[in-house]
């Protein structure tokens, strides 16, 4: 637990910075006398900061869960077809029941995401265990196929704009109060994962050990898939696809403090939030007052970290 206080401090500083950075100037020391700045803070800055932090932590935790389900470190929730399946689900309900309320749309997106992730896990479990690199490749192929189906249906039904919006590199510039609250559900799902941390850690030891210790492998599997699916569905519909985060953060944390998930999941959550917030801030500052999407920044930084990971730790899983 000794890494947690430092990580929380960094996150707090980044959140403060995020509250003050933007086209309109917000001075936190004089804000009580400035109703306009207060409005900007409460309607735009605070929602955005919270949205980034919630997304970052939920995605990173979903990454940990997914990696322990498939026992492979080279996958993240964004490379397994989860988002593409959620997009297919959303497409389906948009076409079949255009007037469906938001909770029904979210429910369908989550169920579709769960089905897609389950398909990925089923494929993975048939691969030889030693083929560490086949796992991410299978995920990318599956994601590509599902994306192609979504694009085709989107094209045929004139809904391509929606599909692009869901599967495009994510960004937070459109977040204001009232348009990010679904992310709390993603954070809740991540919290549930922490509650069941021991179960995921034991499942990561293999089906044999898990069964020997009296766990129902199927039940833990279902719980994990539900967590990943809900997180991805909420994040994708609210902000779009965020690359690399769910892949990179669990890896860095595991390398430092290992896979005792009860201890590491809080660190993963805080670190995920801090990394995404840092990338968002860079995107907001680099061409100030214009913005570069956080997905783009994270793509560059994440790719560098991923390469380092591959070389620093050859195929040991």
């Amino acid at each position, binding site marked *: 637990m000794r890494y947690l206080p430092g990580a929380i401090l960094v996150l707090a500083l980044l959140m403060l910075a995020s509250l003050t950075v933007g086209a309109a100037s917000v001075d936190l020391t004089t804000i009580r006398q400035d109703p306009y700045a207060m409005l900007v803070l409460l309607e735009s800055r605070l929602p955005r900061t919270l949205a980034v932090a919630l997304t970052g932590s939920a995605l990173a935790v979903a990454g940990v869960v997914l990696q322990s389900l498939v026992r492979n470190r080279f996958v993240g929730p964004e490379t397994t077809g989860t988002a593409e399946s959620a997009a297919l689900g959303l497409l389906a309900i948009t076409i079949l029941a255009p007037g469906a309320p938001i909770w029904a749309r979210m429910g369908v997106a989550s169920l579709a995401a769960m089905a897609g992730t389950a398909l990925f896990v089923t494929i993975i479990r048939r691969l030889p265990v030693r083929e560490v690199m086949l796992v991410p490749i299978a995920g990318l192929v599956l994601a590509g196929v599902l994306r192609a189906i979504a694009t085709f249906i989107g094209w045929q039904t004139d809904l391509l704009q929606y599909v692009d919006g869901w599967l495009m590199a994510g960004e937070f510039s459109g977040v204001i109060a009232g348009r990010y609250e679904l992310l709390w559900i993603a954070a809740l799902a991540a919290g549930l994962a922490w509650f069941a941390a021991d179960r995921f*850690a034991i499942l990561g030891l293999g089906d044999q050990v898990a069964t020997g210790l009296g*766990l129902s492998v199927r039940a833990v599997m279902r719980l994990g898939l539900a967590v990943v699916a809900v997180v991805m569905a909420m994040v994708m519909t609210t902000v779009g696809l965020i690359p690399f985060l769910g892949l990179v953060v669990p890896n860095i944390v595991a390398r430092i403090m290992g896979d005792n998930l009860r201890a590491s999941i809080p660190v993963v959550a805080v670190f995920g939030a801090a990394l995404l917030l840092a990338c968002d801030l860079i995107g907001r500052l680099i061409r100030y007052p214009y913005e570069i999407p956080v997905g783009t920044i994270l793509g560059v930084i994440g790719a560098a970290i991923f390469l380092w990971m591959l070389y620093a730790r050859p195929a040991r899983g």
Partner: protein
Amino acid sequence: MIRIEDVSHSIGPARILHDIRTGFPKGRLTALIGPNGAGKSTLVRLVGRLENLQSGRISVDGHDLALTQTLELARVMAILGQDTAIASRLRVRELVAFGRWPHHNGRPRADDHARVETALENFALTQLADRFLDEISGGQAQRAHIAMCFAQDTPWLLLDEPLNNLDMSHSRALMQRVSDLVRRQGRSVVMVVHEINYAAAWADHIIAMKDGRIMAEGDPDTVLNQRTLSELYDADVQVSRHQDRPLVLHHA
């Protein structure tokens, strides 16, 4: 007592076990011996519910395997599988501590911590307790897995080839530890052993398997004789005696 009644098992078209009907006696150290592919591991894995039972019936101290919750079974028997290579980056102590999970479900008490420390000590792992599993040798990791099973502290212990990767002194230490559990604490142990003299020296009950069938069973003096063993392994084997136990000589 573990009762096995009319258990058959196939993988695809291959019959692995043919109508096995036997029992593992309580309070004894039982060794399963036989050539590769005899079905020993499959039998142990079926008892440990790592494989689904296809036909027949197995009960452990009266708990029917098909009708008992897996968590309840985890408090009756611990099983060590053969595949102990894992991708998780856990410290040795964390792995051993998971052995207590069936008893506390995530909320360990002082007693649980004490038992983990005892298990670490028993397998000479105290020095390694804070090392990551992927940074120690295969034999050390094997000992950590065995220590986890011991920490589970169940009346029954099933070990599938526990001596894999272990050197002579650690193998002997493990056998001593196991026989201690049986004789002093009244536990029951079933193990698959390849080095037959470990069975000869320590086991109370031996089950010899070949081609998915039981060829002979009984105490070491009845099973470990020249005729049975030569037939079991299709090789010329001589049996001598050492310290009043059979000693199997298999050098050609």
